[in-house]
């Protein structure tokens, strides 16, 4: 089955094309096309996974373009990492396809939505199968396109328009870093293939300086796509898109592409300490940074968005600390529990028609399926023992302790505390307390609940692939048996557990039992509260620096264009005009003057020819 891996992305592509052409006619039936296509992808992906578990591997390349002697190829490469990602993406995508049938029901552009989902799934599946950087870049941009289209799905909303534009442009900034890094690698190694690049890193063809530079530039791409600080601001805004989209793209898959990319290029990063430190630092900073903002958000999706940013920071931290396995492990568990959280949030929004958590409350009874599932997700992300998030987060903390700087470890611990706090703040505000005028709120249809159930199970079960107790199945498989568990001190597990419970307890105090005033923080340090509410003024800083600088330069150039360039052209034209009128004044009607001038010209030419012999130049 392995050699059929290239077919996996083609099902969603087919769905995209079919729906684009016939979707208007099919209307609500479009969903079945999308669901069927992704289901086939999932089946095939699972078959490939089984093959891979059996130990076989597969790589195929086709000519994409020849440039002189160089042939650029596209292909597929079924490494363990790729196959794993393939399954995760196909699974989450299928679940979201199913979920959307209920969530998006009745929308005017229902088929368009499924077409876009198909396009995105195709791009994401293509990305995780890439055997070379070029193909990765191509699909990297295409997933960005899918994300852009889906964020802007509600095109008539000005916010959606702005968010879509912002998402595309912010990620583009990162992509250009990726682009430059990729080009530099090609310049040095004459190949885009991962294998060739790793070989060049290994045998020293690639100088250490260049390795660091390229690695960091490519990491900028990952920063953009994975919403890392300082290019994270698009991700919260991207919540303007439909909620299933947030679950699929902005939680589970696309934003994890940055982590995937760094993981896929791991040998390159490992060769450069500076690059690793950069990745770890950015990751750690992002983790705590986004977590603090998440504390004060009032939009249910934005809380989850900042939580996503923070968790992605965790994964980057793991990568930077050298624990490739921990990052992928967390990526997987996060994909499941964050998708679950988003889908549950979608179900809540579907029920109460608002996204503001201040206006929610007491929904536990009204949403008998959604509420417990949300709780599972929250427990998992908070790292409560026995849930998936606990194991993956523990793995990261262990890696950070052993390989990373101490500061980053403590930042990660702090972020874990904040995570469980804001998640349960959310939980208590939405589901606990007294109900607030949502009498008509009712549970979502089965098509929405079923995918959440699957994800709920996975949010618990996926943790047991890699535990200190039952063995490191995932790690050994991903590294072909070379994996050894970090010998981290046992107290880290204890600290992690304490921290997560502390967060939950604090949230319960404030929002559940209301033993503590809610404005405890804002009353004491109002400016910190304000700082957090305004997202550290990052957007404002961008507006005042980068945006205004570019617009200032652009304005300057507009003046240059209009006055200098045009002025020079006018000047040239004016000189010609002046010369013409001067010349016309010379036309005084005196035939002999004309004759004299003509003869003078002739004389000059004759003299020049006589002196030079006829040729110069």
């Amino acid at each position, binding site marked *: 089955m392995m050699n059929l891996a290239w077919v996996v992305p083609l099902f969603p592509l087919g769905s995209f094309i079919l729906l684009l052409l016939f979707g208007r006619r099919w209307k609500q039936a479009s969903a079945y096309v999308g669901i069927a296509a992704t289901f086939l992808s999932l089946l095939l992906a699972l078959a490939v996974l089984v093959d891979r578990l059996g130990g076989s591997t597969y790589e195929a390349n086709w000519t994409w373009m020849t440039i002189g002697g160089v042939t650029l190829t596209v292909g597929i490469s079924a490494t363990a990492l790729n196959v794993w990602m393939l399954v995760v993406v196909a699974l989450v995508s299928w679940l979201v396809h199913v979920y959307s049938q209920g969530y998006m029901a009745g929308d005017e552009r229902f088929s368009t939505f499924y077409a876009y989902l198909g396009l995105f799934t195709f791009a994401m599946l293509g990305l995780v199968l890439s055997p070379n950087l070029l193909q990765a870049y191509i699909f990297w941009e295409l997933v960005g396109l899918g994300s852009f289209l889906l964020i802007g799905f509600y095109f008539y909303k000005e916010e959606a328009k702005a968010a879509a534009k912002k998402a595309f442009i912010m990620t583009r900034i990162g992509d250009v870093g990726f682009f430059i890094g990729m080009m530099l690698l090609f310049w040095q190694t004459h190949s885009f293939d991962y294998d060739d690049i790793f070989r060049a890193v290994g045998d020293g063809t690639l100088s250490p300086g260049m390795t660091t530079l390229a690695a960091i530039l490519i990491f900028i791409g990952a920063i953009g796509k994975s919403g890392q600080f300082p290019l994270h601001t698009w991700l919260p805004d991207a919540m303007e898109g439909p909620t299933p989209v947030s679950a699929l793209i902005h939680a589970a898959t696309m934003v994890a592409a940055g982590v995937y990319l760094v993981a896929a290029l791991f040998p390159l990063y490992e060769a450069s300490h500076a690059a690793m430190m950069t990745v770890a630092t950015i990751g750690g900073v992002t983790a705590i940074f986004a977590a603090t903002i998440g504390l004060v958000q009032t939009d249910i999706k934005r809380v989850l968005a900042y939580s996503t940013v923070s968790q992605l920071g965790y994964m980057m931290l793991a990568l930077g600390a050298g624990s490739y396995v921990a990052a992928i492990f967390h990526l997987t568990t996060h994909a499941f529990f964050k998708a679950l959280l988003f889908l549950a949030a979608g179900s809540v929004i579907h029920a109460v028609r608002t996204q503001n958590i201040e206006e929610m409350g007491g929904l536990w009874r009204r949403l008998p399926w959604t509420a417990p599932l949300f709780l599972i997700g929250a427990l998992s992300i908070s790292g409560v023992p026995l849930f998936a998030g606990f194991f993956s987060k523990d793995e990261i903390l262990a890696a950070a302790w052993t390989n990373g700087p101490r500061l980053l470890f403590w930042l990660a611990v702090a972020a874990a505390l904040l995570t469980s706090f804001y998640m349960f703040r959310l939980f208590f505000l939405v589901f606990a307390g007294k109900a607030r005028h949502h009498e008509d709120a009712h549970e979502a249809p089965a098509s929405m609940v079923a995918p959440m159930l699957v994800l709920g199970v996975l949010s618990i079960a996926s943790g047991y692939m890699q535990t200190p107790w039952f063995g490191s199945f995932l790690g050994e498989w991903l590294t072909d048996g070379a994996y050894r568990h970090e010998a981290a001190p046992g107290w880290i597990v204890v600290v992690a557990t304490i921290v997560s419970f502390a967060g939950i307890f604090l949230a319960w105090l404030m929002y559940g039992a209301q033993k503590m005033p809610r404005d405890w923080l804002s009353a004491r340090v109002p400016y910190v509260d304000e700082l957090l509410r305004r997202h550290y003024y990052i957007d404002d800083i961008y507006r005042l620096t980068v945006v205004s600088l570019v617009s200032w330069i652009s304005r300057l150039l507009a003046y240059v264009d*209009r006055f200098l360039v045009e002025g020079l052209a006018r000047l040239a034209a004016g000189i010609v005009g002046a010369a013409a009128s001067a010349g016309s004044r010379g036309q005084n009607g005196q035939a002999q003057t004309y004759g004299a001038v003509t003869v003078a010209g002739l004389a000059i030419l004759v003299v020049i020819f006589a002196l030079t012999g006829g040729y110069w*130049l």
Partner: protein
Amino acid sequence: MMFLSLLVFSPLLGIVLLMFVRKTDERMIQWLGTAATVPPLILALFAFIQSGRGFRLERLDEARDWVRLADLPFLTDAAYVIRYELGIDGLSLVFIVLTAVLATLAALASMLVKTEKKGYFLWLLALEIGMLGVFSAANFVWFFLFLEVTLVAMFLLVGKWGGFERERAAYSYLLYNGLGSALLLVVIAVLLARTGTANFALLHEMLHNPAAEGQLIAPLTEEGRRWLLGGLLLAFAVKLPAVPFHRWLIRVHVEAPPPVVMLHAGVLLKIAAYGMIRFGVGLFPDEFRSFAGVLALFGVINVLYGALLALRQRELKRVLAYSSVSHMGVVLIGLGALNEAGIQGAIFQSVAHGLISALSFLLVGVLTHRMGTTDINRLGGLTKAMPLFSGYLLTAALALLGLPGLAGFVGEFTSFLGLFQTKPALAAVGALGLIFAAVYSLKAVLDITFGRPRDRQEAVMGWREPQASAVSICEPQTSGASLGEPQGGVVDLQGKEAVPAFILVALIVAVGVYPQLLAAPLTAVVETMMNGLGG
């Protein structure tokens, strides 16, 4: 073989037939004018397919005596004979196919032109003959003659069928391009005087083969060659256009009727790229090296300058005009790289931008027809009323910003790939243009298609957001409703208009997904040029 003559002059049949059609019979004119662009399309595609199957294009060469300038005893027999010579290779073929395709699509799109249709089509067909001839000529004199045909035809098309400031735009076009042509003529004349021939192959032989050096009528020094190349590059820089010679382009893009801009942006600008590759790299490879750095620098300047200015524009046609400047910069970047990837990239970018700008202006034509304006401030939320149109417009914007999988990416990627291998730092600066490209194209297109829907009346009556300060420094906005008053309510893309758009999108996707389609015929050409460059 008369194949190439047939290909180049086949639109003449249409011109002759059009002469006999009554001026008022617009349906017939439209039908005949479109049909007249089909024969060259068929012939070009036939040649393209045949060459893909291994047919050697040299067999199409044609030569016939035309003018014998001098018959002096001390000259060799061939000297100072200007022959009627046509001949193509993979490079020309790619551009000929592009021309033929775009000409047919432009003729289809011309159904929105309402005034003086007969004269319009006569000149459009003349323009096509000129463009096909430019790419088929195997001889400098004929290259120049065909180039001037395009100049005159374009001048009239802009000046007569253009927007409000059409005459100014037409004169601007004529002056800049006339100057470029004059410079080109000087270079051609000097080459002809020194070598006694205008044939590309012979010139190549005489300038490169040390043995043939003796056949020169007069020696051409190293410095002399550099001057000639400089003149050549300057002439084509005006026509490309490179900053700071780009002002005419803006005016023509804004004022010319959209179907004509399809051809102008799609093909005419590429003549400059073609000329730089064919004559610059082809005839003076050694001297070209010393210009490569300057070209690359100008390329980067073009990219950034065009993109930054496009950011400010609030009129769709202006945005597209400045984006043309920016995209032509990528061509320069590819040439400045002066390696296989770079030259191939320059060609790719030319073709890709040809297709993309044709698509954009096709849509601009429809937009002008429907809404009576292309002022971004007066438009919005078009997706509601015109979903199909908006989809195409968004595709055009995405292609414009170089989204992988669409043609634009292939050109930019390959050009930058070339420059990164010779001047990585400069290339990195140029790559910033990719960001700005995303900003300006999305800003313009999203403002039109997304957001609050506005009805047509509002657009025409001049609804304007109260942000005069942002607008004030831009040029005076012309609404440019050149194609007659908008008619009827806002209707989506109709079948007949959707066909050319669909074909263009299909081509853009085809080239973007599988660039080997385009790379295959070019391989031999690029290889020959690289040999000329000495590795």
